[in-house]
């Protein structure tokens, strides 16, 4: 077991139960959800309104189980959904995407991901970067104001 730091959107999370194996970063299912918001469900790997089916041919590369529970290879999943990432093997650091960009922006819904019916009142999952670009005042509101 090792500790790993995952930088995902604006989130910086630490997983104490990670396994680092060469290019792969395995997380427990609870750490996967805590660090990225993705959850393993019967319909696939899901986040908000999006579910990505787990291809049978890649299931063993993504999910494994042992006596201590299930583990998920988050870097293999990033490859599956063609999500760019940066890894630091020495310190177990992982950046799944740069801050300011939504995973929705790079998730190609034509490649098998499914958009679950959006809950009433919630924006479409693929609003992503386009909507953030239009809402600069909201983004600026999150930045620290420096004393003049």
């Amino acid at each position, binding site marked *: 077991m090792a500790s790993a*730091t995952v*930088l995902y959107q*604006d989130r*910086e999370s630490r997983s104490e139960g990670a396994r680092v194996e060469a290019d792969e970063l395995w997380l427990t299912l609870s750490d996967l959800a805590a660090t990225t918001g993705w959850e393993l469900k019967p319909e696939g790997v899901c986040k908000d309104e999006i579910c990505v089916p787990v291809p049978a041919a890649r299931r063993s590369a993504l999910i494994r189980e042992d006596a201590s529970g299930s583990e998920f290879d988050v870097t293999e999943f990033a490859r599956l959904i063609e999500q*760019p*990432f*940066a*890894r*630091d093997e*020495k*310190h177990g*650091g*992982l*950046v*799944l*995407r*740069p*801050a*300011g*960009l939504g995973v929705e*922006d*790079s998730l190609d819904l034509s490649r098998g991901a499914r958009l679950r019916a959006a809950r009433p009142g919630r924006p479409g999952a693929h609003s992503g*970067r386009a909507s*953030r*670009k239009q809402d*600069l*005042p909201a*983004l*600026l509101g*999150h*930045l*620290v*104001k*420096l*004393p*003049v």
Partner: protein
Amino acid sequence: MVTIAADARGASAAQPFIEAAHQQHPSLLDEKFQVAELYVVRNVPAAFWIDEEGRMVRANDPIYAQRRNRETGEVALNQPYLDAVRDWVAKVPESDFLMDQQRLAARLPELDVDDVKAAADFQLGTYLALHGQPADALVHFKRAPALRPDNWTYKRQAWSLGDIERDYGTTFQEAVKNPASGPFYPPLELSKGK
């Protein structure tokens, strides 16, 4: 008017410049380069005009309102740009210096895979550098400009978090002149007409 300091080193790095400028307008800190990445800021300064309706009408101008000659100390105003700003203030939607959608799109291109990969490496390098691992940050700080050689914000931040000569085997002047990186600043285009 709002200025945004894109600097991962935080307020302590940006504050001296704000104090030296004696500015009257707000300044914000963009430590995570959120605004810079969203609006494809590949070098600073970069100026954007946003009208009272919240619409961006001019984007990514590489300007200084004034520049000081380091050798002579003489301060020169960027008069053409200041005149353009005054034209906009006076004429608002009829200003000759507003950009149409096509020009705005060219100034705000969609990010490609290399942009996103470069941003991921830059973010990881910054994290490592700020958490006491500057040597391990280097591979990421070198990978980012390899993917996006025209992104000077990444390079300049990386240099500030290390030593440009020791870590990158170059100087600022040599790096700016390297043709493989493209221009340090694109030309300021103040042509009239949309």
